[in-house]
């Protein structure tokens, strides 16, 4: 089993990112998500106030209708 198989649908990453404006923060967040190895990701929320941007990125690990890791059965027991 891989840990990722047990994530029902998505992983959200929330943080505060030092950036002057939301566009910059978006680029930084996207780069970070790619660094983490996610491929199917999006920036859900950005709000620039003060020294940086409150940001939330989301990576979908199991989109509806895709093959779900959490449905994968172990190979049947016995031999």
């Amino acid at each position, binding site marked *: 089993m891989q840990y990722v198989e047990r994530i*029902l*649908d*998505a992983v*959200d990453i929330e943080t505060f990112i030092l950036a002057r404006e939301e566009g910059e923060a978006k680029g930084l967040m996207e780069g970070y998500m790619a660094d983490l190895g996610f491929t199917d990701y*999006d920036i*859900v*929320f950005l*709000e620039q106030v003060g020294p940086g941007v*409150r940001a*939330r990125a*989301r990576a*979908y690990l*199991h*989109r*509806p*209708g*895709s093959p*779900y890791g*959490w*449905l*994968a*059965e172990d190979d049947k027991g016995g031999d």
Partner: protein
Amino acid sequence: MATRKKKILLVPLDPVHDMGLKLIRKALADNGHATTLLPPGLKVHEVVEWIIKEAGIEFVLVSRTLGYRVGELLARFVDLVEACGLREQVTLLVGGMAVRPELAAEMGFDAGFGPGTSPEEVVAFIEGRHFTPWGKGEESSRKKRDLTSGFSYIYKNKGIERSLALITGEIIDWVSNKTSPGVERARIRFRSLREGEGDKGGGWEKYQDYCAGPIAQYYKEGRLPRETRTLSEDELRSLRQYKNWEGQSKIIRPGVVGPDIFIQYGTGCPLMDILHIKTGEAWGAAGVVHFDPSEGARSEGLLGGYLSHAQDGTLLTWENLRLIKCFLNPLTLWQVRAHRGLNTPETVVLAGEAGADLTKINMAYASLGAGMDPARITVDGVEALRWAAHYDLALDVVTNEELSGVPAHKAFAGMLIVAHLALQLGARPILQPLFCYSPEVMLQGQMRDNYIDFNAAKILALRQIIAAPLWPGAPIGFLTHTEDRVQSSVTTALHACLARSLGVQAISIASSDEAYAGGPIAAASRVDTLRAVQEGFRFFGSANIQPTPRAREWAGELIDGIARVLTDVANSGSFVQSLYRGLLGGPEDGAYPGRIGRGTLRRKEVEKDV
């Protein structure tokens, strides 16, 4: 029934003092049981010495925050108790952070109490009263509610009642000699499900004659639309492990009586939906609403099979509905929406046959906000209401046309027409005013100061018109949500608390992904708002939110406006023409009568009753 008093040893194994144990001690003492609370931080063999020394101990409740080595320690404690010959004399209980029943079982304890356990639950266990070790006992006392029970549907506003009687009489008369492909499909579907085997027989072969576009193609050529696939047997079989999933989780129910909370599901895949439903049920949803794809409302006919597709909204098929039904908690209220498309009557038949509790029908909204031809949807809507009465499905009448700019009083007039029609046809309507930051209030400024007064005014107005159940939706707080999950959860919770304060029967709530359009709703976002609402209900308890006097004024204005619109519709002599002419919302409000299904009505041949 008097319970024999028990002797209980309370053991705080954590080095610091334990508030939970003290609360439990008080609850036990209040019920007349004898307790001994040991000092914190004893070694396990010292606890065993205590059990030996204090004769007659029947229960030992150990409290300890669990960590890796702590598990070993507690397991050794159980072993020591047994090896000292005390195991048959005492029942061993463990409580504390991170304690789960599985871990309690693994360590050899007879029961485990995790965080959030109420002292009463421990007392109940000790007294041998009903207790489900894997969840809170509340589940068993939860009843499936009938949202319409206790409502007389008596009108307080007789003027409005008179107008409604005229309008609905005209509608019933007008539709009496008309039929549509939607009406015919519903009848074929009914006969086939009742008389055929599965979807064969009962005249099913004629079904495809009433379908069009991609659906007709599917039945003729067996080709599924793009991005749609049949779920494999393996996938369906593996899902079995999530059956009765709630049996393993703590069911969170607000401790305070409030409206039943509905969540919407419709991820596009029934398997994912089932997991979302199970999550929602566990976090306090009393009901779930099936969201079908908007495309489905625009095509004549429904597909068949266990189908999943990569779009919002889960396909309405007999198999998908049956599958979802299999996994629903028997106490969960289930709504299948039928309100706004070419398949309205057939959807009610499927919902009724699949065992749904509720459906959703509103011809005025379907025409003004969802693109349906007023004539077609009026014929189909009346047929759908008849089916709802046949299956005894309660139905909500939603006023979503407010979102396109129709003022509340016009939307409410449409809602009351459909509700009255439902009553005339023997069905049980539930009024669903929106709690929303609508274009109307943005322009007129009723929510410049607060979100309370105008939403309260809607409830007050409807209550002064008719004694009917109320279910604000859908979802509450519409257009107040942003992509910020904290803001989104808070606004939902506050609107829910307002609804609770106003004493309504149910609410539909959004997830914290409501304003996010970039991808499917995540399960964690559903939990966000359910959790927030629970906290709101806990905060307010039986205290109420006090609207300002403006609420009453606006309620009066709403009633006058509704009465005026209904008089105009009644005087016009045609509900359908009123829709075309904009009496219930027109171009000046941003509402245009739709064209889907235009020209599809036929004169009815010899009536064969179903």
